[in-house]
Structures are given as C-alpha cells and as structure tokens.
C-alpha cells in the first residue's frame, strides 16, 4: 500500500555553481514541476532543506526567498536542517503531510553551496561542516567530518578486518557509476592504485575516499496515492523510517553499527511490508567510502562485516546482486549537503521508471534510499517501488 507517490523529479548538475541559492533551487524545482506536468500554482506547500547557508553564505530565512523566486510566494514553507540528512527529513515530513491529507500536492527539495564559490576555502568549509559534531565535547579536539567517519570506520576495520583496499573499491565503483551520470560532480573513472596513492585526509581516508564539496539543488513533487494516476509517471513511496542516535560519538553504545540507520530501516521496511532481501538497489550516504560499507550492513543488504568484501567482490556494482549508488553516490555525484536527500529520491524515481539512461539498472522494481546526518545520529531510510 503506497503512502504517497512521487510524480516529478528534478535536480541541477552537482558541481560548482556561481549563482544565488534561489536560482539554483528554482532550476531543480522547475525540473521537478515540468517532469510532473505541474505549475508553481499547483504546489500547496514547500518542504525545503538547507543545512548551513547561514554559516556558509550569511543567508538565512531561505524558505520564502526560494519560494518567491520560483513563483510560490504565499504558500507555507517549512525549512529543515539536519546536517547531511536535511532534505530527507523534509521528504519524510512531506510524505506524512500528504498522506494525512493536509496537502494534495507539495514540492520537496533542498539546495546548498559548499564550494569556494561561497567565498570559503577548504579550511573554512571544513570548520562549517564540523559544526555538526558536538560543540563542547568534540569540536575542541579538532575533530573534522572525515575524522568522524574515520573513527567509525577504523573501529569497523578492527572488528571485521575491513581493509583500505576494500574501501578503495567503493570509490572506484562510485566513480565508475558517476562517469555515466551527466549530472555528477566527478565524471571520470579512477583506479584502486590512484585511490590508495592519494594524500591522507583522516586515516584511513585518502582524498578519493571522501566526497567533494559540491553546489547543487534537487526537488521532487509528492502527491496523494488517490490522485497519483492522473500524472504521467508516478512512483510509489511505501515506507519512510527516521531515527536518531546518541551524540557525541563516545556516548553511542556501538558507534560503528550506525544504530539510527538500523532503526530507520526497520521502520521503513515494516511500513512497506518488505525485507532487505526484497530490495533491488540502494542509494546510500557514502560521504566517505567507509560510510557506504557501514550503510550496506545497517540496511541489511549484506551481513555485518561483509560490507568491505562485498564491495571488493563487485556485489555492490551495477551488475552485482545488490547494486549500491548507481548514481555515483555522494562520492562521485557530489554532496551539496541540503540537496543530497532528495537527490537520492530523484535517482530512485528515475531508476524505477526506467529513465536512468546509461546507468539504468535492469529489473529495478523496489529500492531504498539511506540519508544520514552528522555522525550518523540522524538517518532517514525511504523505500520506493514501481507503482503497482
């Protein structure tokens, strides 16, 4: 039983954009509306995500700014901030509101600029990103976001024997997928050797284990199940789970299991009436290669401890038994923080419609999106399916 349907999907290229946030978001919003055959006047509410433009660009109160720029002034706009899980949280709330009948049709999306176009260099943006770790108990140690996921990944390596070479396989796979995605930030393939020879950012992560700083926007149109068939290409949303975990990292029970992802997945699968075995492919939050390994296990796509070997064996490649990140993921497609969650929904929508072009997966009927925020203390997991 679908909760709602996605009937339109749009996104900008992820990369470097020297334009205001409003223009960037409008491109994605109009892409989603055009795809749905809808107009701004058809949108009853905007569920909008932006994580940190207050810090990065001195731009806040973005809701009415983007709505006004895109012909939607007047409607209610709610803005979400949940670090990297920002627009998945917007999506979750949009799904709930439409399902409950509060609105018939809403636009959900996000926008972010993270490149030096903001005027902030790597060190400055690294500090902005670090604001998602605990201000008093983590930031004074000089913990960065590569550092956060390095802490989780190194414990996983210790527990399960995951290797740097296995992590490199994740990067190689996602770069390869990104090379097939015209909207990806990185469009070229890389080799295991290139990944393993890169400069260390925070061990075990080298440069190519890390997603880039990206600019971009994404948006989808969500409508009720009862009206979905009046649109050309609806895709069903059958489950959305959302959970949090303890912050800071040191107080989490077992940091590397990413418990919030496990809880959110259980909730999403239960709503959809499916299990991990029923999932044909996944878009997961691979901000770092190790994060994809942790996510693949937390979602139940591979057994605990098998995330690294599965990547190295090609099981998560597009022709593997559990394809992960056919879009290229955050690693290659890019990671404009507040746009990432709904960009995953865009990829699920296009794949499930059979409209993913060169990166189209065969037999893609049911998929899962996993979008985490901060040190994985927020995770939203969404299940989408070909409309039955």
């Amino acid at each position: 039983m679908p909760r709602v349907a996605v009937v339109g999907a749009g996104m900008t290229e992820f990369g470097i954009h020297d334009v205001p946030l409003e223009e960037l978001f409008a491109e994605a919003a109009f892409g989603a509306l055009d795809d749905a055959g809808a107009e701004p006047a058809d949108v009853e509410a905007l569920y909008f995500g932006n994580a940190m433009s207050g810090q990065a660009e001195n731009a806040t109160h973005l809701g009415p700014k983007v709505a006004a720029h895109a012909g939607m002034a007047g409607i209610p706009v709610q803005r979400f901030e949940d670090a990297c899980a920002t627009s998945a949280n917007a999506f979750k709330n949009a799904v709930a509101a439409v399902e409950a009948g509060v609105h018939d049709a809403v636009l959900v999306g996000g926008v972010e600029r993270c490149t030096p176009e903001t005027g902030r260099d790597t060190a400055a943006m690294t500090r902005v990103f670090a604001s998602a770790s605990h201000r008093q108990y983590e930031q004074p140690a000089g913990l960065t976001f590569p550092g956060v996921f390095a802490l989780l990944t190194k414990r996983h390596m210790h527990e399960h024997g995951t290797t740097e070479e296995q992590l490199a396989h994740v990067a190689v796979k996602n770069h390869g997928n990104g090379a097939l995605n015209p909207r990806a930030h990185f469009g070229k393939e890389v080799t295991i050797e290139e990944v393993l020879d890169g400069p260390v950012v925070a061990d075990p992560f080298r440069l190519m284990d890390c997603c880039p700083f990206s600019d971009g926007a994404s948006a989808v149109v969500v409508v009720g199940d009862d009206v979905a068939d009046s649109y050309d290409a609806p895709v069903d949303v059958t489950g959305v789970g959302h959970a949090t975990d303890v912050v800071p990292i040191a107080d989490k029970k077992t940091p590397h299991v990413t418990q919030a992802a496990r809880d959110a997945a259980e909730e999403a699968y239960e709503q959809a009436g499916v299990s991990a075995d029923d999932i044909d492919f996944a878009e997961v939050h691979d901000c770092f290669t190790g994060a994809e390994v942790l996510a693949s296990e937390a979602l139940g796509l591979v057994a605990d401890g098998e995330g690294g070997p599965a990547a190295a064996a090609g099981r998560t490649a597009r022709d593997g038994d559990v394809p992960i990140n056919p879009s290229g993921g955050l690693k290659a497609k890019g990671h404009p923080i507040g746009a990432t969650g709904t960009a995953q929904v865009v990829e699920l929508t296009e794949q499930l419609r059979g409209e993913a072009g060169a990166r189209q997966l065969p037999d893609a009927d049911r998929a899962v999106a996993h979008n985490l925020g901060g040190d994985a203390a927020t995770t939203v997991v969404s299940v989408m399916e070909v409309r039955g």
Partner: protein
Amino acid sequence: MSEGLTHAAWSDALREGVLLGGACDDCGATVGTPKAACPHCGARGLEPVELPTAGTVYTETTVEVPPEGIDERGYQVAVVDLGVARVLGRLDGAAEIGDAVALAGHVEDEQGYVVPRFEPA
C-alpha cells in the same frame, strides 16, 4: 540545569585532571559527558561520578586536513574506553586501537572549551 553534571563542572574537573561522567541508576549505563537525562533509557538524575583516567584506545584517527582555526596537521583524535564509559579527546604520542592510554591533560579551543588529552600509558 540545577542538578546533575554540567558542562562547567565537567570542564573544571578536567582542568584539574579529573574526568567526570554520569551514571544511570535505572539502566546501569554510564556516559562520559553531561546529560540532563540518560540517553539510553531516559531516566532523569544521572549521578555525577568520577571516571577512571586510564583506559584503552577504542578508535582513533589522525587528522591531516584541519578546520580553520587549527594550524597544526597530523594530530590524533581518539575515543578512549575507560571501562565504564568512553570519552573523546586528543591523543599525543602514537597509539592504536587497543593500546593503553592515560589522561595527560587537556586541550583548549579559542572559545575556552576543553577536551581531554591522552598519552600512551
């Protein structure tokens, strides 16, 4: 916060070489940072407790690309397992997961916030 462990008390203790945490009577958990209630069961009134100052490295990384405001590179950040609880801090002197370490002071940021500094035991 009028009761329980506060950031101010935790920081003052750390400056004097003492690690404070909060112990939950209801579920038995101990956390290494102040919380208004137990993050694992929700019970209020965590009892402030003195934590051991020695333990083992639970996980660690060496940060080569620091945030703005930190000039050094190649510093190590670790989560240290003190037995009853874990805490995050700096680690001076190379140590790997499982190695014994002990509290050796603290580091302070530009706003005066402190976190523990450990060294190999």
